[in-house]
């Protein structure tokens, strides 16, 4: 019993440390890393959505970038003034645009979910692959909304005096610029999404998800509405993707159709495979690796033989990062099918584990 209490105690210590670190880091870090952090937090929200769908319900989707795009462009549409010649806009406050855009992405997922809940596994993956190409085509075509081939600017996020663009305010003597502001906003939303997902997966709905993934027929025999829960999972996943898309739009500021294509979808798949398919922590670790690797190589690649610098000799950091993450996907699937988090869980003593939710099973 005391062991149990120790473990709980440690868990709070770890949580407190993470929170403190999350609050304090922007004061220390270079803006480059702060912005990267915000990108990672935003991407993590998206990868948690894909983890829930594929890792927990067993529904493979290649359509994630489509729903990211729906969120991003919905935000642009709702928050743009609409009278500045940049295209359609409703001129609503940017803070209000975030939940609305997330809702539109959820509705898009709900519309597709009758198809999604009829299919499973690879069939669904392949069907959703078409969403990516349909999405890119729509982005190129719907010029008043998306700016067409040349793209469109995303309006900055404004909360009170803070803004994601050109803001520089001090709070208690600590400067909170745009980068710091974005860091806190994305981190807070990631914390909310993460906590919501962990609670959801531990409860009634999460058990139904697992039952459907493990043995669909038996789940139905217990009264679980398989098709309905598949649709629910697809909708939640789309909503998370939509939120991630909104945040990415705010961070990268300029949206062009090419960004939301196949490679974006594959990078999200890579995140959950690398980090671990079945847990929120895995989805976050995967986002750190996939988003962080190029950035680290960009800065320190010159020190690694053969990498060189951009435009110089060697392959260049962008190429090396891309090759590395493809290779990591291959290696992880071959040797650690439950991802880096699963690998870690096998190394760390049981009582130290935070969630205990990492079963030693892999994708089939």
């Amino acid at each position: 019993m005391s062991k149990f209490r120790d473990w709980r105690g440690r868990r709070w210590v770890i949580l407190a440390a993470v929170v403190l670190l999350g609050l304090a880091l922007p004061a220390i870090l270079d803006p480059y890393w702060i912005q990267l952090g915000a990108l990672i937090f935003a991407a993590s929200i998206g990868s948690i959505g894909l983890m829930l769908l594929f890792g927990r319900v067993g529904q493979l989707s290649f359509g994630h970038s489509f729903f990211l795009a729906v969120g991003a462009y919905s935000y642009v549409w709702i928050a743009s003034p609409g009278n500045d010649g940049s295209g359609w806009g409703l001129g609503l406050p940017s803070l209000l645009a975030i939940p609305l855009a997330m809702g539109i992405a959820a509705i898009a997922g709900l519309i597709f979910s009758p198809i999604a809940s009829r299919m499973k596994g690879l069939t669904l993956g392949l069907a959703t692959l078409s969403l990516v190409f349909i999405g890119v085509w729509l982005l190129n075509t719907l010029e008043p909304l998306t700016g067409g081939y040349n793209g469109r600017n995303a309006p900055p996020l404004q909360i009170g005096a803070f803004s994601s663009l050109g803001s520089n305010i001090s709070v208690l003597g600590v400067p909170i610029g745009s980068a710091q502001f974005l860091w806190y906003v994305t981190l807070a939303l990631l914390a909310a999404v993460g906590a919501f997902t962990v609670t959801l997966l531990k409860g009634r709905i999460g058990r139904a998800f697992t039952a459907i993934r493990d043995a669909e027929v038996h789940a139905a025999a217990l009264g679980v509405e398989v098709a309905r829960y598949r649709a629910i999972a697809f909708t939640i996943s789309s909503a998370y993707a939509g939120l991630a898309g909104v945040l990415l739009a705010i961070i990268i500021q300029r949206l062009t159709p090419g960004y939301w294509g196949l490679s974006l979808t594959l990078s999200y798949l890579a995140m959950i495979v690398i980090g671990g398919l079945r847990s929120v922590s895995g989805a976050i670790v995967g986002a750190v690796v996939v988003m962080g690797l190029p950035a680290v190589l960009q800065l320190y690649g010159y020190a690694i033989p053969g990498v060189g610098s951009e435009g110089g000799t060697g392959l260049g950091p962008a190429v090396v990062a891309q090759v590395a993450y493809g290779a990591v996907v291959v290696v992880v699937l071959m040797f650690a099918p439950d991802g880096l988090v699963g690998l870690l869980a096998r190394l760390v003593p049981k009582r130290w584990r935070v969630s205990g939710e990492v079963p030693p099973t892999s994708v089939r």
Partner: protein
Amino acid sequence: MIEFTSLIVNGISVGAIYALVALGVVIIFKSTEIVNFAHPSLLVFGTLIVATAYNGLHLPFYVAAIAGVGISALLGVAIDRVLVRPFYKKRAIIAAGIMTIGLSIVIDTLTTNQIGAQILSAGNPLGSSTISILSTSIPLARLAALATAIVLLMAFYLWLQRSDFGVAMRAAADDPETASLMGVRLSRVTMISWAIASALAVVAGIFLVSYPSAGLDVSVGAVSLQAIPAAIIGGLDSTTGAVVGGLAVGLTQVLTLGYQHQLAFLGLSFSQAAPYILMLLVLLIRPAGLFGTKEVSRV
């Protein structure tokens, strides 16, 4: 009318090339139940070898072509032996499919980086000559592509029918344990499948980049990716389906491109999305594809 006829002929000749690529996807699926997402990447890789041997090393076209086909076949075998084999044992079909995505990211990045801004010729023995059929002028290279595709598809079909290999292949995918008890050497079946599939991809690649195409550039990867919808439209476990799917994708693409002015309300990039829209429609009606017998899922 003339325009329509010419588009149809063009669509069929492009579709025949897609059919060859799709056939490779089908061959690997039939013997392993794995969807090889790296197949288009292998096409680009092999074609790049041919182009490099032809331009860089100044080898005669046929030598370069044989080298490209051979090296790709060997790479296919290596992928089968080293990367995919661990997944067969666990019957981890979906994981293996995702693994090939990782592999395609690696290969694509390297080949794209190598090609850069160049447009490489992979040799063009038929030159830019055209002949006139039904009052449409058709590049000879396209006709050769069509003829080669027909010959290869027929040969493969006959071989599957006449030899034991066809049976062994089906047995290997359906029930590996029983098949191996019955004396089918699974590793040989999958190895040969990967070799043939990779070789076919390079043959298709050579035609894909020859006249009237300008040559091998970074866009060929995206073009060859159309083989995936082609294979799925036809049915992943059907060789007939690969041909039909290839033709369907070729025709869809050429027709939507040819009539893009009439279809202007759909936007100029519609021809790129059209094959995928077709795939989605087919999957909705027949989840196993037009000629497929089983659904592509094993969860």
